[in-house]
């Protein structure tokens, strides 16, 4: 009989619905809230950043790492070298939706019905001790 170890796959999860995106040239403000342990690293709880065009989540996080240093990056990204994926114990919400690695390289969606801004909550799930 054929190799039964690779049977037909179960249907995968549907990709997260994207929201409307903006023309590249229009400036976009991203509001970021830092919560919990990461706020101790950033020394501030909120930040508004303006981008020329809609950034990707990765672009936003790279900018935050430039601003706050390697300690921030170490808590957000799993590795220091590419491919840099998210720490599995970091939780990021974009406009109320929990996102994962799949959202890293897509443009951040606009928040529906609000002024042009995107809210990202960064909440590193503390572990250990």
């Amino acid at each position, binding site marked *: 009989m054929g190799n039964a170890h690779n049977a037909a796959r179960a249907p995968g999860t549907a990709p997260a619905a994207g929201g409307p995106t903006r023309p590249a040239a229009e400036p976009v403000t991203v509001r970021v809230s830092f919560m919990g342990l990461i706020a*101790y690293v950033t020394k501030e709880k909120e930040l508004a950043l303006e981008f020329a065009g809609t950034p990707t989540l990765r672009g936003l996080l790279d900018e935050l790492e430039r601003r706050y240093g390697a300690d921030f990056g170490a808590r957000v990204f799993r590795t*220091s070298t590419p491919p840099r994926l998210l720490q599995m114990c970091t939780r990021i919400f974009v406009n109320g939706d929990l996102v994962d690695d799949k959202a890293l390289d897509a443009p951040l969606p606009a928040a529906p019905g609000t002024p042009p801004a995107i809210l990202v909550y960064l909440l590193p799930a503390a*572990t250990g001790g």
Partner: protein
Amino acid sequence: MKDARQELEAVMHAGRVSGEEIREDVWIPSVCTICYGGCAIRAHRVNGTIVKIEGNPASPTGSGRLCAKGIAGIMILYDPHRLKTPLRRTNPQKGIGIDPDWKPISWEEALAETATRLEQVRAEDPRQLVLQVTTTMAPSSLLFFTFGWAFGTQNMWVAGGGVHCGNGAHAAGGITHASWSVVPDFKHCNYAIYFGASKGHGAGHAATPNIAQAADARERGMRMVVVDPMCNFAAAKANEWVPIRVGTDAALALAMANCLVNELGIYDAEYLRTKTDAIYLVGPNGRYARDAASGKPLVWDAGAGAAKTYDDPAAKNAALEGEFRVNGEACRPAFAVLRNHLKKYSAEEGERISGVPAATIRRLAREFGEAARVGSTIVVDGVTLPYRPASAIFFRGAQGHKNSMYNCFAIDLLNHIVGAADVVGGTLGFNPVCHGHPESGRPRYQPRPDRDGLMAVGSWMLPHVPYPPAEPRRPDSMGFTELFPLSHVSPLMASSDQEQWWQRFDLPYRPKMMINYGANSIMSVGNKEAVAQSLKNFDFIVSFDLFLNEFSDFADIVLPDASYLEVFDPRPNFPFIFNHPAGLGDWGWPIRQPVAEPAYERRSAREVLLGLAYRLGLGPEINMAVNAFYGLDGPQMLDPAGTYTLEEICDRELKHKFGPARGLDWFKEHGVITWPKKAEEVYWRPFVDVRIPIYHDYLVELGERTGKLCEAAGMRFDPRYYGPLPEWLPCPSHEVKDAAFDLHAFYYRDAIQVNGFTMENPWLDEVARMDPFSYRIAVNAETARRKGVKDGEAVWVETSTGRRVAGRVRVTEGIQPEAIGIAACAGHWTEHQPIARGKGVFFNDLLEIDFEHTSPVNLNLDLCAKVRITRHEDQHAPHGT
């Protein structure tokens, strides 16, 4: 004790005076939490009094059955020795057995002082707060972790429950089965070999469903072999008990693997080729050979005569054997490297290390390999699936050592060699895949491949997942889990050498305040002196508890917690990887709800903590932490600016999972929602495109990075634990040279006394006193004769480092001659638990808590000790009985 029992009975019958009108007669569905079983229950309440607890047949989590512990839950509800009011110490001196001189205070006083202290700590450095949590209420204690996230500390741990029971087995289970632990597919398995495990024969995850399934399997003819130093609960029901030298499971398993692969030629080539990294090429540096452009691991396509990336469609028939030149270097498939590695674990070498005869090792390997029926298939629910009715499982016994990771990997390797992983009849993880309720599609998760095609879990108990491990970095937590990313819980939280390591790594703060929930770390971790010393770090300790206990001697404020029969919990059996029964059947999501109102001034610790978070101005943080932890998004997401009760959170969690019509009110009435499992969920391996490592390449990189950081700080690092293939490495107890200390002491989880607070239950105490071993020290009959010790006599059990405990001997043929076995959780001395006091032996007092006795891979504490036994000078004292 007799007075306490009479007192309890009087309380229970208070509402049932003969002739009283029955105003209320209801059955309320909920969930037990006395052990990790999480069995669904129904509580019978008459006129406000709980008169009986039994299993809930409507839920697959228990299937209507309930063990003695669950039934005895009534005695916890009405125990007059439970805390009734908040207490504040008036004696500033803290120490083991030193009376805090408690005075009752109001809740407002307690919360005001607690909040003030928390504000001070947060202003200085929130990392100074430590949260210590019992594992017994594991799924529901997680509101404590969210408090930690909101507050800004990563210093949280689960005391003994973590460093004893999980760092090895759970990490290994996660890496190779995407689950917290593993169990035979009882419905179809024909040959199960247990290494230090008791699934289906004792307490623990999905206990009562497993017990029923295991009994049915034995009746059907499943052959059960138990490898254990002691002929205990599982071995007592088995076809064969294989006595093994304590802590040598890896040696036996590797010898069996060698027999399978190199002597019998039994292995599932197709499974290895398609579902593991057996085909990944390994270079002379011991690392995967990788494609220069993509970085992906390479395999050898024999047809093309060229190396290709592992996910190249042409790599279907990639080589398992041979040597090939890749990138200018000689490379071999990982399977070939493994096959060669196994040769040093001959059956004779296995005998030398484990004490199991070589002939037995060969026979077990042959029986296991033949039972696996490599290449066969079976149709289940209309789906053709691989059929491998053989299973090798591991748990607490095998993993309770410094070498826990390799012990577990070695045992599990047997499953992967024959392709018996998460397929029909084989070894199943607890529910690594769920497609969700048919109407809501939730909860939905499954493992997914990482960059190397290796499996990352779809669901986990904590955000810190075992694979892929985070890059090690210089730690800034007290337990150094960032330095050892395969660990979950760290004994450095209470170790005797913690200050030394904190200084070496320049930890910029010290712990100041602790909030404890139900954990008794003085007894649950190791020797009490080390833990007591670590608790001196803290200026202030607040403890939520059911009873005053040995840990309470170090608390400043004690708060009376509501018991599991008095609280809400929306997810007592979720994540499903923890204590939902595995295998075919139904999914069940029950809730825990109060069957009685908390009496006196008791309050739910979770509600108190939620209120404290809001009181501290951490509303947005705790709300987002709850969203993050419970995965709440969309309309059920907590508004960061809102204020919520625990019931409202429960309602949102349930509606998020099952739709707006099935919130808390629906579940209060129905108790549980069920839906059928699909074959593709249970036997998921063929349907999910992931591989598991049999060659742990990632360990090599981890070892290099961790090693550099350790050495830079002057921390001795042992690279032997970071090789890519499992080895048997001796425990510290195996390296004690003094011949006077000739026995290995170990402990085991009793089926009745499963944690600290069960010892206080008078019904369970009565059952335990009927058991010949619960409160005694099991010693081999010949060993006892040789040492001149008789059954019932009192002895000292003493380690080579001078630690000792006393107890009475139970002589038995059912223990390996070099081992002595002691049931866990015993040996209480607090006067506040009169039933528990003086019963059994405090095994943990024999254990060292330091880095030397800790796994340098996953931070599991080493749980065996080399001891001698000598006759006690006082034969008249009870000594635990």
